[in-house]
């Protein structure tokens, strides 16, 4: 039995669980981008576009849309690998049910992360379709913003899962959203170029995975890709995901193998 086959087995559970709530999330995943793009891209954009500070004559809608795509992937991924992971360990204990079967800790971790990636794929696809409807995507390159958004999500999902398997209570999740995710959402180039930040903050912004994700998504939807920097962005995100996965394997084992 190969490891991949074992790691795919838990997927079915997560999808079965997801089937119960999919209607609600389907509506949110279509409505949320529409609302954001109307308010920021169209509404706020009218004022921003008058100042014409943006490079090469692009509209604010075109600027902000890919940023929102990457930032949304980050938020969904963070949520999906915080409460559900702790619950599977502590409250509903689904991981323990899985461990009594041939599945191993690594299979369970990979399986859960694969489910999260699949969710991200659905959300990113819908989001890109909405942005396209607003006329803010250049094809064919723009389509690659979907896998990049998934990668951005995974680069958050793995370290957050590592933390969720380590922590005893859900209290810290709220703190993570408030003090890590929200500042990143606001200051990592989603809404305005990081070059307008004070120098020290600008340096911090470059260190965040979200900035790399936003920048790359933006290059792709604008159809203006610099190959070398694009590869570096991808590498950075892959590295974050890999470090997170390694840490998660450690905390999962420590928590589940007693």
């Amino acid at each position, binding site marked *: 039995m190969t490891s991949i086959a074992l790691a795919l*087995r838990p997927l079915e559970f997560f999808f*079965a669980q997801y089937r*119960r709530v999919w209607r609600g999330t389907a509506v949110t995943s279509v409505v949320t981008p529409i609302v954001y793009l109307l308010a920021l891209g169209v509404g706020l954009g009218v004022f921003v576009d008058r100042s014409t500070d943006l490079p090469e004559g692009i509209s604010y809608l075109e600027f902000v849309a890919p940023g929102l795509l990457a930032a949304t992937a980050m938020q969904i991924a963070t949520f999906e690998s915080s409460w559900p992971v702790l619950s599977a360990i502590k409250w509903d204990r689904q991981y*323990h049910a*899985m461990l*009594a079967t*041939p*599945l191993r800790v690594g299979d369970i971790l990979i399986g859960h992360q694969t489910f999260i990636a699949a969710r991200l794929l659905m959300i990113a696809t819908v989001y890109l379709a909405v942005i396209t409807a607003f006329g803010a995507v250049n094809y064919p390159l723009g389509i690659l913003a979907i896998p990049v958004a998934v990668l951005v999500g995974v680069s958050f999902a793995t370290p957050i899962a590592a933390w969720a398997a380590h922590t005893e209570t859900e209290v810290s999740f709220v703190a993570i959203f408030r003090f890590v995710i929200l500042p990143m959402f606001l200051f990592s180039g989603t809404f305005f170029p990081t070059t307008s930040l004070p120098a020290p903050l600008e340096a911090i912004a470059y260190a965040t995975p979200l900035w790399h994700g936003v920048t790359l998504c933006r290059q792709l939807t604008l159809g203006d890709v610099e190959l070398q920097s694009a590869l570096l962005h991808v590498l950075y995100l892959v590295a974050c995901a890999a470090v997170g996965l390694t840490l998660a394997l450690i905390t999962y084992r420590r928590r589940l193998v007693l």
Partner: protein
Amino acid sequence: MADQNGQPLIQARGLVKRFGELVAVDGIDFDLQRGEAFGFLGPNGAGKTSTMRMIGCVSPVTDGTLSVFGLDPARDGVKIRGRLGVVPQLDTLDMELTVRENIVIYGRYFGLPRRQLGERADELLDFVQLTERANDKVEPLSGGMKRRLTIARSLVNDPEVMLLDEPTTGLDPQARHVVWDRLYRLKQSGVTLVLTTHYMDEAEQLCDRLVVMDKGKIAAEGSPRELIERYSTREVVELRFDSNRPEDLSHWTDGNVTRVESLPDRVLLYTDDGDAAAHTLHERGLVPESVLVRRSTLEDVFLHLTGRSLIE
């Protein structure tokens, strides 16, 4: 009845489980044969669950050796778990899913094909008398129903051995009897049962053989009958007094009473002939408030071996 190669189905030698400083299992030996119902009996914290978790290949062995189906849990966990059915102490059912989905999804963890699982789920629900609830969510089911569903779910892979950790704790008497009945049928169909319990009646009902564990060690081993013969007497006389309780009962009993145990609320006389002992008391003029002659049970053995003080 040994396994094909003459080995016991499960064998432990000097098995140890430590959690930091705490020694949960302190060097135990046991052999388990195919087809038997084997019980680990003991107070809370005796090391029963730790032992079960090691057999279930979810908890690594600290020291000593353990073989399950002749395989090593450290190396062959995937293979071993594929042949076990586990009923954990705390239910791990998926509350959001339906009764039937719980079995099907669990079967998928074993890599069983979906088509086959539909049929299997129906059979199992029939076996645990939950057919009518097949499409209901798990959440509102009673404790007994959830327990039966956990048992049904653990049978999805047609296991050779079932590991049952306190299978009836928290159930009402009717629900317990239904569970016992199902487990008895499984045993008759050739499934090896390994269970932990602190209910003496459960051990007497289900186990061919059991070990009494105390503080991580095995205090005694045998069939329920053997243990009673070895560690207790055939009968016990329970005496309750209102005000005339004598300090020392030895004047009032004859040589048939092997042991006298004085408890705050009653006095127990261990004897092979309870009626004769009660008669002797009466002859010698002692009239307790109440006299009850009963057969010795595993509980007498258990309390004798593990003591009466509360362990916490």
